[in-house]
């Protein structure tokens, strides 16, 4: 029955309240399309969010939804998943929600491998509180709270996820329907914690912060789309490729035609390669997009139920448990 639903069936009647031109609109649109494409069962799908612009997301998706408190969505979602492991749970968070106030919960959801699809909308700024710098803002970001430019070093969401033990790490751009759609579908299929960083343009407070690689003019030359088993090539007619330089232990860009046999083939199961790809920053290097890292591992809910063999079902009686100790009888 669900298979016949269209993207529109996944939209609620609520008026969407993001700023006109916000990247969130594009993400919402691709998300509802993907839900329709994969035939998501609405009653078994839940969107859980924290606080921030991105966290309004659940109100706009016609599934179950829970708009929780700042930074805690992964924790709420973990409890929900344990209570009902059949649910398909998407966590929507941002760079402030997920990496500042909620960094701890994100770390633990990833290292436990709870089957949550975690979408981190990264716009490198605090939007809902009107434009202060965030933990992903680049050094020198001028904002109301850093008029002379920010001076604390940013965190890389992808490297944070990798360091936290994430088994699935992907990246996409808000308006890239194909790239984002593909990544969301892959996340949906993945059994475990899927971490997706979405470069999201905040049109009001941090416009075009990703233009170095999202700009139409530069996109081809500065985006490398990782596909497992295929060469890591990019640029016009895939003329460029990535090569591992043994001396510097880093990636370098080479001519993919002339030195075709030196071009790396993407292996999404290799954490070293994932680290190198996630470390690249445009414009010096191309920005890596797509599924960068994916390995199979036991999920947390599976381990949890392994330790709770009764599946939270009641197989014993309290009356017996009360007597399962030394007792004595008074006549």
């Amino acid at each position, binding site marked *: 029955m669900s298979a016949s639903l269209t993207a529109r069936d996944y939209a609620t009647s609520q008026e969407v309240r993001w700023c006109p031109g916000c990247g969130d609109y594009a993400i919402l649109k691709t998300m509802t399309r993907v839900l329709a494409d994969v035939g998501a069962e609405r009653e078994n799908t839940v969107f859980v969010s924290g606080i921030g612009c991105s966290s309004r997301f659940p*109100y706009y998706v016609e599934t179950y939804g829970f708009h929780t408190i700042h930074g805690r969505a992964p924790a709420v979602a973990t409890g929900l998943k344990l209570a009902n492991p059949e*649910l398909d749970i998407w966590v929507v968070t941002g760079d402030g929600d997920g990496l500042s106030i909620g960094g701890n919960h994100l770390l633990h959801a990833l290292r436990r491998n709870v089957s949550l699809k975690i979408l981190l909308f990264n716009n490198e700024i605090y939007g809902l509180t009107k434009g202060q710098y965030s933990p992903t803002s680049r050094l020198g970001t001028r904002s109301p709270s850093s008029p002379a430019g920010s001076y604390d070093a940013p965190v890389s969401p992808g490297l944070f996820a990798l360091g936290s033990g994430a088994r699935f790490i992907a990246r996409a751009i808000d308006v890239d329907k194909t790239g984002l759609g593909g990544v969301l579908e892959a996340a949906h299929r993945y059994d475990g914690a899927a971490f997706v960083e979405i470069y999201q343009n905040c049109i009001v407070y941090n416009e075009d912060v990703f233009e170095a690689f999202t700009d139409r003019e530069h996109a081809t030359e500065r985006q490398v789309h990782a596909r497992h088993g295929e060469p890591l090539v990019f640029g016009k007619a895939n003329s460029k490729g990535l090569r591992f330089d043994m001396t510097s232990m880093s990636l370098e860009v080479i001519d993919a035609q002339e030195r075709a046999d030196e071009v790396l083939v993407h292996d999404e199961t290799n954490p070293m390669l994932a680290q190198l790809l996630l470390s690249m920053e445009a414009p010096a290097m191309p920005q890596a997009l797509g599924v960068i890292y994916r390995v199979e591992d036991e999920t947390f809910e599976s381990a949890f139920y392994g*330790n709770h063999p*009764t599946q939270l079902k009641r197989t014993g009686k309290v009356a017996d448990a009360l007597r399962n100790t030394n007792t004595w009888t008074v006549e």
Partner: protein
Amino acid sequence: MSAKQQELHEPSVVVRFAGDSGDGVQLMGTQFVSSTALAGSDFATFPDYPAEIRAPAGTTFGVSAYQINLGAGPITTAGDAPQMLVAFNPAALKVSLPLIADGAAIIVNTTNFTRRGLAKAGYEEDPRSDGSLDGYQLIEVDITRLTLEAVKPFGLAKSDAGRCKNFWALGLVQWMFGLELEAIEEWINRKFAKNASVRQANLAALHAGNAYGETAALAAAVPQLGVRKAKFAPGTYRGVRGGEALALGLAAAGELADRPMLFCSYPITPASPLLHHLARLGKLGVGVFQAEDEIAAVCAAIGASFGGAIGVTSSSGPGIALKTEAIALAINAELPLLIIDSQRGGPSTGLPTKTEQSDLYQAVYGRNADAPLPVVAARSPSDCFDVAIEATRIALRHMTPVFLLTDGYLANAAEPWLIPEMDAYAPIETNALAGKPSGDVQTAVFERNRKSFGRPWVSPGMPELMHRIGGLEKDISTGHISYEAENHQAMTQLRADKVTSVAEFIPEQAIEVGASEGAVAVVGWGSTYGAIYQAVRRIARLDDRVSHIHIRHINPFPNNLAELLAGFDRIVVPEMNMGQLSTVLRDKLGVRTVPFAKVTGQPFLIQEVVEFVLGQLAEVTGDDVRPRIVQGEGT
């Protein structure tokens, strides 16, 4: 001593074991208790241990103690002043001496009364010879040496062999009380089933200590105390600690509601025993999730509640403070949630292993905005069982978070318990949605019961009931986000009315001891129950104008409480804080009280409550009965 004074004494004996944290004192205490229970005695215990896991040996701050009050009963506290002390080292003696009764029997382990041992405890002179133990019955036993001799055949390393001394001492104490060794032997056999030499050594130590008492040469020096049997109602009994009773009560609540339960917690003293007990109750439909922090624990519990399981979180004061924002989310989202607070001494890290009724303000008032929720408190170890069921019943009926207050003392204290019959408890209703809604789902999900204000408990996975909830203010009828002025006023009122409505479902306030009107009402809550109960019972034998009222439902109070309190000239409120219940009584009922505050990290002694209340009684009535009572007390 007059006959009247004579009967003021409970026919019971108070025993205290004290030693280093590593001496096995707590184990010795629990084993002694099981034997006294089997012998038909009533009892109450009080484990008193340091925050350090292994504090430096021989120091006063590293002393771990276990106090037991046993006898005919009814016994409701661990007793004021021990009549017998076993001190494994000078530090244990030094710490315990101010607590014990005049003329008490003191068994000291002389092995540790060396110059070094005395110095570590801060003794300049040996208390055994400087007269400071005059008036006590001192029994000197070289326990460590005798233990080493007894376990020699089993070839243990010296340190392991020495560790058997708690069982040697227990053997001696068992003999003094004429108690059987069988239950302890069974326990040792079970516990050390896989380690034959340790098992045999502990058994040998136990028997050697027992035989030492029997030895004729010493029989004159070691008193035989005997155990008084209690008059128990017929039935099957077990011993239970508060943490255990609470765990079983939660499982029982899940069974009565026929819902799974997810217990989400982060380890903290003194709340961790509950986590440990529940981790063993998987067969009873309880899942245990150890979260990364306090906030994650409460949030996961809320997620579980959204998912249709009963979400429970547990902590102590500082951890509860961290959960506060999430608790308000559950209030706003109208989800059930149990918050169990094992209170400890504060503020900040405070006294982690010491008891205090520190968090009543936090439970009743401690949230941003107008965010009321029901608060209930357990009064004894076994009462934790009933209170867990009651708290769950309220949470599911009204779709609200509920605070359950217990404390470090209750969590670890033990008492005999007439095992309850599950048939005696009514099933817990769960606010199921009656049929498929005809109109808007979001509206149906927030259509509240007219009496309880509880909304239907609808969870992901239920077909055609997709809806959104959250922490933003919502429209009172459609449940959609609303920033409308009038709506917020109405929703705030609704949240208040919901908590007020709880009073319509709970029992009227009862009186524990005394008449429904009189000169003084002694009003308590939580773990002070035992001391207040005994104190008022003692007073009642001389003066019938004093009553004891103990409040389980603190928010809201039972409907009849105001009227009940109006029947007394003075309301005295003993609390292990600076007067928090007094404040709440004044706030909610406009009642003036006389607080009796104790914040030493130790429970109330019966005698200090007696004295305070009699002082108040004298003020109110002009009739001072203290001279007739206080004399002869203190034993």
